[in-house]
């Protein structure tokens, strides 16, 4: 009895404090909310801004450092994080990673795909193209495209223009992941029109079940990626 009361008391004491703490932390991110949503879910009607909620913390941390140190280009993002230290960026990444993932598809009514283009896109996403030595997107991003801890983000609910711009950035060397930069290699193997079809196809995929990224090392990607320690030795 006493133990139970104590437990209840402890919980009562502990939980509001924690909830408070994290609500309080979010208050610091008012600037980010303007473009990424109050809970990192994205802003309605945005044609470009990516959502952040539920992406792996390790991935988000790398991106924030990238904007700060010049490995990833974006004038607006750099403005907000240029004088932030690693410890604070890590907390920001953690905060967004713990929020429930976005469940909607992208907001923009991206151009419709013909049945033929759609089939091509889905095939590349799910099976890749051995002729171009292109692995399936799902072999790293997960069969459900919900991502893989700690370095691979989900491919659900991203605006098509954003995805297209990222592929351009990898090719032009203005977005650089930890070496070996597997997305740089993949971006170079996809033709521009296939890329557009994939981006539109992906923007129509939503994460209705609120799936989280698969646990670290729960499957082995086909290539080594710098942001995935366990895939360093992959063939």
């Amino acid at each position, binding site marked *: 009895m006493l133990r139970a009361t104590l437990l209840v008391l402890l919980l009562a004491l502990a939980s509001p404090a924690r909830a408070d703490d994290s609500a309080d*932390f979010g*208050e*610091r*991110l*008012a*600037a*980010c*909310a*303007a*473009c990424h949503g109050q809970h990192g879910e994205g802003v309605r009607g945005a044609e470009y801004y990516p959502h952040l909620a539920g992406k792996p913390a390790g991935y988000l941390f790398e991106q924030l450092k990238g904007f700060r*140190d*010049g*490995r990833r280009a974006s*004038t*607006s993002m*750099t*403005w*907000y*994080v*240029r*004088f*932030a*230290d690693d*410890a*604070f960026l890590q*907390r920001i990444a953690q905060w967004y990673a713990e929020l429930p993932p976005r469940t909607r598809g992208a907001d923009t009514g991206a151009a419709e795909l013909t049945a033929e283009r759609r089939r091509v896109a889905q095939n590349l996403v799910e099976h890749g193209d051995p002729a171009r030595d292109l692995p399936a997107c799902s072999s790293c991003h997960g069969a459900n495209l919900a991502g893989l801890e700690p370095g691979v983000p989900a491919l659900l609910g991203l605006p098509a223009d954003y995805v297209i711009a990222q592929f351009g950035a990898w090719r032009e060397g203005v977005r650089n992941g930890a070496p070996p930069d597997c997305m740089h290699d993949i971006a170079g193997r996809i033709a521009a029109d296939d890329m557009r079809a994939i981006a539109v196809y992906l923007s129509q995929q939503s994460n209705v079940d609120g799936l989280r990224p698969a646990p670290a090392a729960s499957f082995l990607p086909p290539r080594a990626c710098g942001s995935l320690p366990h895939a360093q030795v992959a063939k």
Partner: protein
Amino acid sequence: MKTWRIAGLVAVPFVLAALAIGIFLFAQQGGLAPYRLPVDDGRVVAGDAATLRRGEYLARIGDCAACHTARGGAAYAGGRGFATGRGVIYSSNLTPDREHGIGAWSIAEFAHAMRHGVSRRGPLYPVFPYEYFATLADADIDAIYAYLRSLPASANVPPPNRLDFPANLRPALVLWRMLHYRPAPAAATDDNRGRYLVDGLGHCAMCHSEREPGGALASGGHLAGGRIPGSGWYAPPLDAKQLQRYPVEQLAAYLRSGTSDHGAAYGPMAEVVYRSLQALREDDAIAIARYLKSIPARRAREAAFTLLPEPQRQPEVAGDGAEIYRHACADCHGNDGEGKSGRYPALRDAVAAIAPDPINAVRMVLYGGFAVTTAGNPAPYSMPPFVQQLSSAQIAAVTNYVRENFGAQRSRLTAADIEAMHGIVLD
């Protein structure tokens, strides 16, 4: 033939006068001495642990690393670009690489560059704040030199400068020096530590001074405040009047943490705090605060600060600034601009509100910002951008409201002023 001879005779006094002025100005900028590089006298600077630690601290306070490190590049290996009115100048490699850095420099040559702004490459551009470093004590220059020599060597070659003619020619700098450079009196005696740090190593006046339209320091403009050439931010005066709202301890804390109830460091000042001042020892921060608060205020020069090249004939202000403020700003900055202690800076008497130049206020409202992370403020707060949320007319109205109510500035910004500030490079 004859007329030519007469014309020649008439011209002689003018030529002589021009020559005399030239010689006078040349003497004023230090004569020939700065251009004679010293020979290596064989003096060796001790590199013991205590000297290296002191050198590291002094280099940090002098902000050497900030200017001499490219974004994401090796520390002190140079290559950061500086936009000036005449093009881009790149900082040099200060690592001990013998070919590309200063590895082959004697202490005499290093001290000469710091004191006179001339190196084996010729006269140096004044983006390098040698005008201020000239007053450094010998022992401090030695310690910085020893510290730089202890860094890992990098063979980085900074990109070549991209400057217009004639600024691209180093010898043309002699002319600039004749017009604008007056050597500082010999090394300062270190009796006022605050002044030594502010006017010497800290080169605060590089940003905080009043400038002529051409960018040269205005006479009497030392620390009198003005728009920073090339960067498009306004730096306030640093004197007893401007800083009266800060008690000494609070001002010292602002310098180290970038935050206070009276203002947050943003824009270029955020970088100074992040890369340099947050390392200040407490006693040095107090010395700086005391000195700044002892500087008598100068009479503000009547300067017209405009955002548009041609001011609008019929300024028209739209929207109810007070109403927009209550909706969009009061949650954080308080109904009376009093701020929220420890989170959001007060706007009453804030730099952006009281400055004669509206540029900081407009930029902050357009793009917002994130206060710097420092040991004193490890988890700062941020301000959202309003560029997507409010129209240009609304931004003009709310900025006018803030400046008139919390800064007692007559403010008549219009939508056109705000639009002139769109899409500027945030730097």
